[in-house]
């Protein structure tokens, strides 16, 4: 029998799932080893490993790139650009949002490359690709010498209009590579118009690349020591898997690797209209999945501020490589509740994280968190570690006393506020995009997701919630369903020969994956806008201009709610290639719950109520209020909801109109 092993390294836990060719799965959850993630990964794999020679593939999702950016631990990067533009990165682009706007002491976030590490070379190419000023090779050699003299070993090259003509960038890269070990080039990384975003995308690749390359080669070394010689695949931000080699070369494409894997688990349910809802310790994330395909975005901001479920453009570093289009709010189990100076109850954005963690963990935390509130309400009883209700009550009293209410009332308000906050992530991916969420199924996972899912669903009139088996290790499970896929782009304003561009892009993308084009499904896309407008939308290409325009008008209406027609133009061309040959069967992880007799306990729902407590093995249908406990998560069935055990161990929750609603 052959096996596939999926590994998801998260902030707190490393999850490992092994699936055999017979469909049987084994799961391991071990603590992540932050300083060297490889050791946590190998510990986890050892727990599930039988015969290493039968492992055919290792699929990996990692937060290495994200953490490197958030903690500013990437390589020192030298930035090389066209003469006259070395200030552009230090000047940066940022929006002052929310409280920053009235802050006279606001200081811009430090740029991804320090001013003194930015270099210029003499050259100029026009927007149509014509060479206006030939490249001065001596200016490149001077920059290279300076970079080496400073001890910098990673460089990013982004020259103006290189998407239209990369000849100068290639010459610069060739010279730099003689003395600089790692060189990322914008026309290779992401040749799309707008030099600032193209530069930051390239810089981030240079920033993360050496780390990623080193990490993956050490990982493969450790796997070989375990006897595993199978290829290692890495999940990219858009939910495709790419080879470890490509992941190292285009590291920027893996920044959203972890969250993307979770969305794939929701996609794997096979339902036609899904809102994926993932709530962990510090954030909650939502994503729309239609017909099994997650929505993608072609610009996101890393390390920026989130607000109201959207990532504020301009508050982080823009990245142009495609990513699953997630909305994210800083609301999770560890979010801290507090009373502001005018007496209003607030939750987050500060989180207790895993250290010290919620007060009830007994690890020294004393701030009241969402997890503490859920414990006080009786919604939660235990987790992978023992919980202290007494400590949770004590923490809740820090809110209850100044507010003049009971600990239970304060806890209920915290629960309500955090549900509303998470709902705003769902709001962003549905209502704000002109999509009616009624009729969608909310697929809930992550440690805290199933506890809040029904309340979030109610806010949108969503009547179906699904909690997959092993919802606590859903991201690792999602990796098993991923297939090789990648994307290529090139900007050219209404190119005369799009067919040639598409053919070239498809060839490059196939080369990226190391697979013959004949085995790949090729999707052609174009970025279209109204002539003269600044914002474009990505739509599926058609050789018929009328059809292409019609697709653009339809998307425009969907996104902005305005039916408008007019002359259009194309800005960029994209090809997405997907390997269809090994599409795995969806879902299908049997649950492993222990069949014990149901118990009961008191929960607080506007007053104490005794409710039954089940596992997935002790019921087939169940009316709320009730609680279903998994080893890694707790499902709350509120009054008005009915739980049913479905195929593959999934729990289906339905809002039953004949039952009294929990209001």
């Amino acid at each position, binding site marked *: 029998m052959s096996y596939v092993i999926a590994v998801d390294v998260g902030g707190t836990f490393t999850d490992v799932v092994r699936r055999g060719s017979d469909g049987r799965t084994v799961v391991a959850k071990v603590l992540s080893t932050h300083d060297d993630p490889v050791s946590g990964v190998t510990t986890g794999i050892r727990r599930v490993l039988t015969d290493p020679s039968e492992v055919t593939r290792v699929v990996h999702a990692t937060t290495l790139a994200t953490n490197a950016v958030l903690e500013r631990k990437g390589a020192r990067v030298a930035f090389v650009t066209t*003469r*006259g*533009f070395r*200030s*552009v990165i*230090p*000047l940066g*682009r*940022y*929006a*002052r*949002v*929310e409280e*920053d*706007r*009235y*802050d*006279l*002491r606001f*200081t*811009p976030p430090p740029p991804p490359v320090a*001013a*003194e590490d930015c*270099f210029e070379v003499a050259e100029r190419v*026009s*927007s149509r690709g014509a060479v206006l000023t030939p490249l001065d090779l001596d200016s490149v050699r001077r920059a290279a010498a*300076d970079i080496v*003299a*400073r001890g910098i070993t990673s460089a990013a090259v982004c020259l103006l*209009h290189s998407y239209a003509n990369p000849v100068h960038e290639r010459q610069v890269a060739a010279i730099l590579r003689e003395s600089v070990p790692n060189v990322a080039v914008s026309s290779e990384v992401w040749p799309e*118009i*707008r*030099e600032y975003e193209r530069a930051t995308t390239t810089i981030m690749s240079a920033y993360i690349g050496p780390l990623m390359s080193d990490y993956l080669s050490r990982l493969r070394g450790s796997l070989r020591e375990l006897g595993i010689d199978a290829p290692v695949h890495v999940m990219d931000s858009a939910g495709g898997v790419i080879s470890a080699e490509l992941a190292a070369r285009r590291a920027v494409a893996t920044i959203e690797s972890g969250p993307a894997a979770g969305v794939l688990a929701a996609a794997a349910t096979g339902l036609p209209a899904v809102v994926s809802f993932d709530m962990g310790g510090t954030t909650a994330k939502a994503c729309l999945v239609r017909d099994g395909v997650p929505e993608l975005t072609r610009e996101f901001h890393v390390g920026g501020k989130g*607000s*109201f479920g959207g990532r*504020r453009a*301009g508050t982080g570093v823009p990245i142009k490589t495609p990513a699953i289009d997630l909305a994210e709010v800083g609301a999770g189990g560890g979010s801290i509740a507090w009373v*502001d*100076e*005018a007496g*209003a*109850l607030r939750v987050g954005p500060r989180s207790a994280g895993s250290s010290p963690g919620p007060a009830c963990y007994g690890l020294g935390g004393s701030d009241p968190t969402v997890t503490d509130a859920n414990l006080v309400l009786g919604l939660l009883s235990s987790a992978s570690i023992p919980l202290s209700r007494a400590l949770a009550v004590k923490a809740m009293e820090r809110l209850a006393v100044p*507010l*003049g*209410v009971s600990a239970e*009332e304060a806890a209920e*308000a915290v629960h*309500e506020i955090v549900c*509303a906050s998470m709902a705003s992530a769902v*709001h962003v991916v549905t*209502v704000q995009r002109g999509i009616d969420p009624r009729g969608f199924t909310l697929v809930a996972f992550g440690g805290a997701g199933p506890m809040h899912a029904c309340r979030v669903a109610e806010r949108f009139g969503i009547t179906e919630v699904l909690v997959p088996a092993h919802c606590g290790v859903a991201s690792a499970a999602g990796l098993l369903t991923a297939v090789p896929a990648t994307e290529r782009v090139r900007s050219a304003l209404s190119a005369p020969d799009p067919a040639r561009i598409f053919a070239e892009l498809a060839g490059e993308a196939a080369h990226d994956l190391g697979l013959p084009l004949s085995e790949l499904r090729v999707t052609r896309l174009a970025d279209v806008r*109204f002539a003269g*407008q*600044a*914002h474009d939308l990505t739509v599926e290409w058609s050789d018929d201009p009328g059809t292409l325009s019609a697709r653009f008008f339809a998307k*425009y209406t969907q996104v*902005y*709610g*305005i039916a*408008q027609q007019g002359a259009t133009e194309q800005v960029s061309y994209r090809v997405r290639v997907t390997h269809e040959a090994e599409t795995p069967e969806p879902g299908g992880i049997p649950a492993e719950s222990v069949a014990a007799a149901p118990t009961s306990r008191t929960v607080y729902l506007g007053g104490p109520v005794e409710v039954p407590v089940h596992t997935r093995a002790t019921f087939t249908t169940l009316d709320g209020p009730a609680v279903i406990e998994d080893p890694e998560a707790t499902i709350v069935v509120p009054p008005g909801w009915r739980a049913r055990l479905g195929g593959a161990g999934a729990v289906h929750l339905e809002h039953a109109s004949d039952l009294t609603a929990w209001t």
Partner: protein
Amino acid sequence: MDLTAEVLRHALVVAAEEASIVVVRSAYSTFIVEGSDASAAILDADGALIAHSMATTLMNSMALKVALPEVRKDHPAMRDGDVYVTNDAYRGGVHTNDLLVFRPVFVGGVPRYFTATMIHVSDLGGLSAGGMAPLATDIFLEGLQLPPILLATDAGVVPSVEAVLRANSRTPDKVMGDVRALVSGTAVAATRLRALIQEYGEAGLARGIAGYLDYTEERTRAALAELPRGRFTAAYPIDDDGLDPDAPHHVQVAVTLTGRGAVLDFAGTGPQVPAAINASASQSLAAAVFALRCFLDPSIPMNEGCLRALDIRLPEGSLLNARSPYPCGGRFVPIYAAMEAVIQALSEAVPERAIAASGILQPFSIAAMGAPYWIHLSYDFGGVGARRGLDGPDATGVHFGIGRNSVPQAEPVESRCPLVVESVETIPDSGGPGRWRGGLGTRTVYRFLTPCHVTTRGDRLRIPPPGREGGKPGRLGGFFKRSADGTVERLASKVNNVLFTEGEAFIVETTGGGGLGPPSDRPREEIEADLRSGHITEPGAHRDYAPRGLTRSPGSNATS
């Protein structure tokens, strides 16, 4: 007490936010491309500001707030589905290119709330394409005026209004695209508001909103009470009015901190003039409120509750409260002066939060000389003044103009307009020297491939922003014309449709921020760090800081 009031407050801001997203993404006007100048707000029937979108500048939400009662006065009977527009600068508006759009939301048969949106539209006539008329002597030269009128009904934009707007625009299709975006934005926010009325009930929503405004007022008053009581005065000059370079103009303020309130009295400010350096009252109100808020807890929400604690007095017929037909298009010149005056007065009151004066934004337009029109309408930012304990940020949209920094992108501009962006650079040594250094200005160079017109609207290009407490002023920027033979000539700060020919270049240099504290107190490590990063040059270091034994760090490329 309502434990979950935060949920409703959040929902109100999100409703406004959604409206602004629709406007920003679907509008045509290049001015709002980055979402910086698009606004959306939710108001009550009396014009009290309930919530506004995150990118909304106070300039815009104050305009919407002041104009709404004027719209209601002219239209006592409104119907559900009606949408109104105005740009009347003397009744809350800003200037002719900024359209204010309002939609009533009915409760129990009467308009109870209004959703409102606003942007600088692509063109509505006037002296130059895109809405800049720096040498206008009355408002008629600035563009089409719209008193409060019915813009749209359930059936769409009123055809006669559309005909008038089209006839008065150089870019009729784009203007109608902008107008439709504004109307759609109000519809999105109205839908959300109706959902909230359903969820909370009419009385419940009203109670929740009242609680939100009271909460904000309480936080504002508590923050004001922490400031020292007293009367603090300051004045700030304006370079010139663009017509008479020698006529002096200034803005003056007396800030009285009364404990849980504040009075900002602008008596003594210069009279309105027949030149484009006047402001409408709503814009001056915004400047005063913004500058004061910079000295309060920045996390206080912005709504009517905050305004209740403040008494802003704007003398009628002054530069800060102009009457018809005095032009208002150049309003940011007097209101930046007003803001600086308030900030300098409060820097006296709260020295630990003091900030030196700043360079400001410098708008300009580059336009085709005839049809087909292309236009590049943009602004570069000056450096911010040094703060006590902190250097000033470089070339940043500090203060409230825009509240963001956006470097112009050469690639999209060159793809759209017949020009070459030669460089975008910070100017070394342009930050005012001091213990804490002012932020740098920038230099951007546009070389033209065809003849075109350049229009500018600058200030603080003749009188530099002063330093504080021994700090030196920031370096003056300017607008310049470089001839094909390389000679560079300074333009006046406010010029209209200057002809540039092929091969000539337009140079925009922004002014640096003032320094704070004596330069001799700046530690050597910080001077050396500035040398490494290129904030200062070696000659500049010796001239401005005269450090002993300063050596250039090896490998520095800062001044190459």
